[in-house]
């Protein structure tokens, strides 16, 4: 991977594409290290949204008129762009949702209705985001099924042998995160999927924190479902994706009823349309979807391979610099990880570290990052998280580390 030439990856120039990044907060240049929560949007995405609302707005799949026809075409082109970006087999395997949470709830409901019975089991992991825990708990409650949890070691790596032991004839689905939003761990999803498939168990992968950092090839991974949010991959908020293998989408019942998802409606009986329409009840977020398509074009243009190499350099540099700070403990030290640094600075409450960092213009997140079981594992209440993106720089890491040292002095 390191052989990829990224010498023409001009971060200074790239930063100019993101209007938010040039501003000052509290009279200090903004250092945006909260990309795990949401990423900033390139100007081309912002301009597209503006232009669509200004010139083309019209509902999709409905009108016979020119504008509706144009918008429908752009919406379906966006679906194709997403298919291509993740190398899915068919565009109708791409369902537009509100985001990852919505995608997982859809599968938890529809898959649950179709296949889950009393005493069946679902396997998740100890490092899931709450959005990949709670929908399954709700489904288990509804169906009287059980949730099983793959543990991780102190470095933040899933214990694959324990996972194998959890699989039983009762296991109906495995739902695992691709990259941990708190620890940065890149999980061996291919291996996880292979093990499940050897036992004829389908797998859902939560790709929310993975897809913006590396090239995803759905057909190579061979997962059954893959979910992610648009706003975490430089696209608009309120749009997300559920990839589902054709077979499952055909068999699963719809999640929500409404307009655009039906074939015929009478008061006696309604028949449903085929996927993707079956799972997109109501007016979809078509401008969000098109905006997401433009964000993916932008990334394609930069090159996902180059992004990956540059971010790896940031990770290595950041890990080295942070490790040099006495009293700083990093949580999540997996061999294979993305540019996420969760840490505690001595015994300084993470909230306090975050508040002071903010005053220095540095945006981070503090708390449990919607992964409380992870912090239970480490027996702490939470941490500070710096999550970097390809528009972040080595100089920003230097400044960040200097400020952390200054904060230490304030408290000790």
């Amino acid at each position: 991977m390191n052989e990829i030439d990224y010498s023409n990856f001009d971060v200074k120039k790239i930063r100019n594409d993101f209007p938010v990044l040039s501003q000052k907060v509290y009279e200090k240049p903004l250092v945006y290290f909260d990309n795990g929560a949401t990423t900033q949007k390139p100007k081309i995405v912002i301009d597209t949204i503006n232009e669509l609302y200004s010139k083309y707005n019209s509902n999709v799949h409905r009108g016979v008129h020119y504008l509706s026809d144009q918008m429908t075409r752009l919406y379906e082109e966006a679906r194709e762009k997403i298919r291509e970006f993740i190398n899915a087999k068919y565009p109708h395997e791409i369902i537009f949702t509100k985001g990852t949470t919505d995608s997982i709830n859809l599968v938890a409901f529809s898959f649950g209705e179709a296949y889950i019975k009393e005493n069946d089991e679902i396997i998740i992991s100890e490092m899931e985001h709450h959005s990949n825990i709670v929908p399954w708990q709700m489904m288990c409650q509804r169906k009287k099924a059980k949730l099983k949890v793959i543990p991780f070691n102190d470095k933040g790596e899933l214990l694959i042998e324990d996972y194998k032991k959890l699989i039983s004839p009762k296991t109906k689905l495995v739902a695992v995160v691709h990259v941990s939003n708190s620890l940065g761990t890149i999980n061996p999803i291919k291996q996880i999927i292979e093990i499940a498939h050897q036992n004829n168990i389908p797998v859902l992968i939560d790709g929310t924190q993975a897809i913006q950092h590396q090239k995803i090839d759905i057909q190579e991974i061979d997962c059954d479902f893959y979910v992610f949010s648009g706003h975490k991959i430089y696209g608009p908020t309120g749009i997300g994706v559920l990839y589902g293998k054709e077979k499952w989408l055909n068999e699963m019942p719809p999640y929500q009823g409404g307009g655009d998802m039906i074939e015929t409606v009478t008061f006696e009986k309604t028949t449903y349309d085929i996927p993707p329409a079956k799972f997109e009840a109501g007016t979809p977020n078509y401008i969000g979807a098109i905006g997401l398509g433009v964000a993916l074009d932008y990334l394609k243009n930069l090159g996902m391979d180059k992004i990956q190499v540059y971010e790896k350099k940031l990770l290595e540099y950041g890990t080295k610099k942070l490790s040099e700070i006495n009293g700083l403990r990093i949580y999540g030290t997996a061999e294979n990880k993305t540019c996420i640094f969760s840490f505690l600075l001595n015994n300084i409450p993470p909230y306090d570290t975050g508040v002071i960092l903010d005053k220095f213009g540095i945006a981070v997140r503090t708390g449990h990052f919607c992964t409380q079981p992870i912090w239970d594992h480490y027996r702490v209440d939470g941490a500070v998280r710096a999550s970097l993106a390809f528009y972040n720089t080595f100089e920003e890491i230097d400044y960040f580390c200097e400020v952390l040292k200054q904060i230490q002095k304030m408290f000790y």
Partner: protein
Amino acid sequence: MIINEIQDEIVDEFARFNNWLDKHNYLIKLGKDLPSMDEQYKTEKNLIKGCLVKTWFYSEFRDGKVFYYMDSESILTKGFIALLLRIFSGQKPEDIERADLYFIDKIGLKEHFSPFRANSLFKLVNKIKSEANLYKINKSK
């Protein structure tokens, strides 16, 4: 001492500092100096709901006055708590209820009291006032 006198005193104290860093250093000092709340009061019931950082609150009504007890996992929040306790604890409920908290603006750290801030001290101030209101109503019954 009446509420506004204490507020003025705090404003004077902060006037010594001409930058946010020194103000925060002072808050950290106040937070560290404030004794922790007795563990028996750090109950689920006394936790302030909706704060990112665990913050505890309870109050007592004695001899016509309200006494507040607060603690937080955050040292900065504890610093502010020290100020709030200094102003409000031991005051009459009617005085607490109608107090205008102008010191927040004047010390130049208003962002910490924003209702939109995740660990809002705004909630603590509201709680202080609503408890005072309850004691006032009960007293008049």
